[in-house]
């Protein structure tokens, strides 16, 4: 990618972070930590990788994305809004009683959401079903699933991995956001899932590690996913990330998994986001 393209993606990810903070601030709840750690991959998927039509959200031949870690809906919604699926201002209605922006992704109410999720482990199975369906229908459709590292505790993730490999779903790209934290603390302390790469490899995946905040590394990883077409191997992109990335006092803090910032915290966080934006634009 060119310097200009990279900078544009970085600016978009910065705006995704604004949406995450604004949404969770206005909702007085939600999950900023894991949304911020995945801001770059949401941006990359919707602005560079996926074939989607914001003006025709249910275009049958679109690529699919399932947010298996559905609690990070604020990140997904922000990316969708910025991509043109719905007004960015609506992030202010997140989780409100009269809003279509439900606390966890709802495919029936939110344009661009391909699967309702929220209960961990189920989204990746649904994504595998979509990939199997695309193969059965002989359609060139890519299916992406974004998972959290805490989510890997769920046995269903590995049932889905078995299924994907057994049916040769090389059109399925599983992306794991390994920010190292889950609700009760460090993933290695709560339930150690390491070695994640060897586990996915043992389940028949081609695995690739990336810095999840580096667009060049993401580009190379998705390139590998495309190169895996025809091999019958699904791809697992393992992203090393920082939970709460981009907001100094939220970074690497399990405490910021599932709460919204108060007015003072929102102001401080937005100050950092706007400073980062100014630096990018400067």
């Amino acid at each position, binding site marked *: 990618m060119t310097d200009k393209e990279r900078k544009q993606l970085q600016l978009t990810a910065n705006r995704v972070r604004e949406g995450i903070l604004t949404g969770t601030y206005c909702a007085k709840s939600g999950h900023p930590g894991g949304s911020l750690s995945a801001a770059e991959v949401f941006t990359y998927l919707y602005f560079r990788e996926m074939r989607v039509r914001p003006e025709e959200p249910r275009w*049958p031949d679109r690529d*699919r994305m*399932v947010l298996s870690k559905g609690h990070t809906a604020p990140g997904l919604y922000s990316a969708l809004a910025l991509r043109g699926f719905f007004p960015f201002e609506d992030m202010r209605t997140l989780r409100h009683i009269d809003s279509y922006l439900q606390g966890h992704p*709802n*495919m*029936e109410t939110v344009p661009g959401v*391909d*699967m*309702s999720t*929220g*209960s961990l*482990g*189920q*989204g990746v*199975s*649904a*994504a*595998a*079903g*979509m*990939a*199997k*369906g*695309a193969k*059965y*229908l002989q359609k060139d459709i890519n299916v992406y699933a974004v998972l959290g590292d805490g989510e890997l505790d769920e*046995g*269903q993730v590995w*049932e*889905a991995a*078995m*299924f994907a490999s*057994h*049916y040769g779903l090389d059109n399925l790209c599983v992306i794991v956001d390994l920010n190292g934290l889950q609700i009760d603390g460090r993933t290695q302390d709560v339930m150690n899932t390491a070695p994640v790469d060897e586990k996915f490899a043992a389940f028949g995946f081609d695995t690739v590690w990336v810095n999840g905040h580096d667009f060049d590394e993401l580009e190379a990883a998705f390139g590998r996913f495309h190169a895996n077409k025809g091999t019958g191997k699904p791809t697992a992109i393992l992203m090393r990330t920082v939970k709460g990335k981009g907001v100094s006092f939220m970074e690497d803090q399990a405490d910021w998994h599932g709460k919204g910032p108060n007015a003072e915290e929102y102001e401080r966080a937005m100050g950092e986001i706007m400073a980062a934006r100014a630096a990018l634009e400067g």
Partner: protein
Amino acid sequence: MSDVKKIATRDGYGAGLKALGEEAPDVVVLDADLAGTTRTAVFRKAFPDRHFNCGIAEGNMVSVAAGLATMGLVPFVSSFAMFATGRAFEQIRNSVGYPHLNVKIGASHGGVSVGEDGASHQCCEDFAVMRVIPGMAVLCPSDEVEARKMVRAAYEWNGPVYMRFGRYATPVYHDESFSVRIGKGELLQDGRDIAIIATGIMVPEAMEAGKALAAAGIGARVINMASIKPLDEEMVIRAARECGRIVTVEEHSVIGGLGEAVCSALAESCPVPVRRVGIQDEFGRSGPAAELLRFYGLTAENIAAQARDMLGR
């Protein structure tokens, strides 16, 4: 009824799937290593590329089906009732029910008539846990013909459907002209003294009870309520108004199934005494199916006795 042809409703499921598959290319079938016994193998033999075995992983199977449904396919997923609705309950609730996806669940081995395998495999809770999911249709056919035709009715129904089939061979009393209408009961015998509302393989027993009562001068109305949800409330309320007493019969816990659905409908519109014949809040046990049905009172004799007890005749 010893001279009557007996076939298990699960056989109707397999035959119905195969017939539907010939006409509907969007139908795909998923199983969890039980294709032979749920009878989806009948479909698999005809359409091997449309049958996806998911291994012994029911939760994944249901969520995979949800994904397939989002692609415009109509998946039928199968396992034993215990594992389809128990192990995969939350996947059905969140991956299928909440987004109202067009997934059909065809479960075999409902009730105690599973037989010798015992309580771990005898699901008497499936109606209850499926009924409580918003938008889920809950069906249980009373014979092989109804089971076969129910497959098409489920396909034509827009939204999630749960169908319970049995392992035990039971009398076939419908002829080929019968058609399944979701949300409608079937009046099998009229009467004004008492109404017997039954579902699944209890219907032939209820019919026999109805005849025995008639022989004793008691007019029993006998209704096949294959559609537990949506319930044919109009038919239930009319039965209450015209008969005054109701016996419900199901091979399921008296908690959460047909009996409670009938009681709920009546409590708000036309309260009358109801006797619920079913599994009385207990687990099953091993034994031959016929002996188990007798042990739990799921027989024509007990249905008639309960009716007479209610009437004091």
